């Protein structure tokens, strides 16, 4: 396993270029992939925008609009990053291209770097569109929380989104298309534990135990602190970053293990015939 792990960590710029070119072509040739950059994030923004407008008008809590809309915009970034990894892997399954793709000399590192490049570009597009829409519809400017804080939060959310995406990709290689729904649904499972729209201490004790293990919880706690005080809280940010890096390493090792298992069981060739 060790020698194959080292091989999977080699990298060729031409292979990454080939994969990025494929993902770019898929994006502009497939209406689904264009649509999902804006559709769900816009639905989420409108839902929380109207909710926060109503709550602001009827409650005395300060900064409700900023908490909700800041949470909605940043959550859509995490969701976008997470689903992109799964859907770009699934594209090869849907096209019956798994055989040719994995018979070619691509490594796991090249695959994920290519997905990270295209995923980053799609996240930037989605984030820019949502930020503009939040400003136009609700006069909410997400950049008010500060460039450093925003950069730090978005970096952690992107990385953690990829962590979840890599785990889902590993599960798809191990169990096939029957679990493809995870590519879209895992985000919804994590969201209630991530304190996106409410503080950690407002949740039951047993939920808090789970919530503190998620980097997203620390990001959104930090976001509310930044909105309330105008300052970047370093401790939750470092906790989130540390957790994310640990989980990233674990997810890559799990992906490698799942791919080896799929090869041991001959699953890569069976997906093609399915």
């Amino acid at each position, binding site marked *: 396993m060790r020698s194959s792990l080292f091989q999977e960590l080699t990298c060729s710029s031409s292979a990454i270029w080939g994969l990025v070119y494929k993902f770019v*072509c898929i994006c502009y040739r497939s209406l689904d992939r264009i649509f999902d950059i804006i559709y769900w994030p816009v639905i989420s923004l409108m839902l929380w925008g109207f909710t926060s407008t109503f709550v602001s008008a009827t409650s005395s809590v300060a900064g409700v609009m900023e908490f909700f809309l800041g949470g909605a915009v940043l959550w859509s970034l995490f969701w976008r990053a997470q689903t992109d990894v799964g859907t770009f892997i699934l594209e090869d399954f849907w*096209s019956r291209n798994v055989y040719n793709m994995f018979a070619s000399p691509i490594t796991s590192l090249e695959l994920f770097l290519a997905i990270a490049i295209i995923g980053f570009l799609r996240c930037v597009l989605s984030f820019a569109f949502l930020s503009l829409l939040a400003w136009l519809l609700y006069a909410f400017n997400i950049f008010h929380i500060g460039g450093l804080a925003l950069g730090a939060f978005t970096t952690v959310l992107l990385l953690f989104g990829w962590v979840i995406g890599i785990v889902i990709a590993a599960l798809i290689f191990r169990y096939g298309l029957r679990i493809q729904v995870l590519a879209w649904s895992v985000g919804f499972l994590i969201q209630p534990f991530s304190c996106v729209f409410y503080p950690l201490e407002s949740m039951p004790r047993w939920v808090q135990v789970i919530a503190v293990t998620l980097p997203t919880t620390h990001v959104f706690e930090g976001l509310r602190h930044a909105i309330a005080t105008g300052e970047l809280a370093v401790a939750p940010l470092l906790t989130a970053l540390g957790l994310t890096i640990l989980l990233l390493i674990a997810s890559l090792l799990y992906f490698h293990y799942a791919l080896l298992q799929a090869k041991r069981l001959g699953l*890569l060739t069976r997906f093609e015939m399915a």
Partner: protein
Amino acid sequence: MSLLEIHDLRKRYGAVDALKGVSLAVERGEFFGLLGPNGAGKSTTINILLGLILADSGTIRIFGEDFATRQTAIRRRMNVAAAFTSLSGVLTVRENLKVYGGIYGVNNLNAKIDELLERFEITDLANRKLQYLSSGQHTRVTLCKGLINDPELLLLDECTLGLDPDIAEKTRRALQEFQREKLTTIIFTSHNMNEVEELCGRIAFLSKGEILRIDTAARIKGLIPQQILEVRFQPGEDLEAVRHLDGGFSPQHTGDSTFRFVLDEPETQLDAIMQRLVQTGARIADLQMTRPTLEDVFIKVARGEI
């Protein structure tokens, strides 16, 4: 040193032994056939060579290097074209070939793509999405992908499946030309016996995960030693003597004046039988010797008769 050396390759799925110690060597520039019934282990062997399946044990050396530890570098110099597989359906033919050209690090990629499209007579399909192509057109695009990096080792798994006879013939010619130009080593599987016989210098005959024999097509056919001699006599001849021919030949009367002889050892029996037939005095109108074909061997292997 052979270009490809496989030693004692084994693979088991649960209780099923897919490969039971396959060993073979393929030389540089060889057109090598893998033949056998379904479940013989051909595709498992090819998929292990592509790194898509992990073998349980055994060693593989390609280009003189250990495949287990140098797989990524080795696979850059190989490629595959297989039936039943596809490329990205939403991408055009040219886009798909550019993707794989990038992955394999091909220089002058656009010129290479143009050359391949022309070689397989599908230049007009360059800007069509793959999902709208017929199976025959699709097969030729897969072949273009297989040749995109001028591979030193090319694996072709049922690659002419779905082609009409005319296009299949042109495709075989194109593959032969490519191999001559680039000195590519090709490992070829097909259920079309004539195709295997026409293209492959040597053939490994597999059955139930084992290699029965590696040899030329002519010698593989020797796995069935019997040959059939059919003799048609002039009309009106008295054939009683032929019917009761001595020497243990047991002639079968198959038509009005035609007899069939099964020769277990044709080299020694043919001369004897001809002498005896002449002695009967019956005048012969026509004779035909039928040798076993690769298909005959294939059927006997599939039925467990060899």
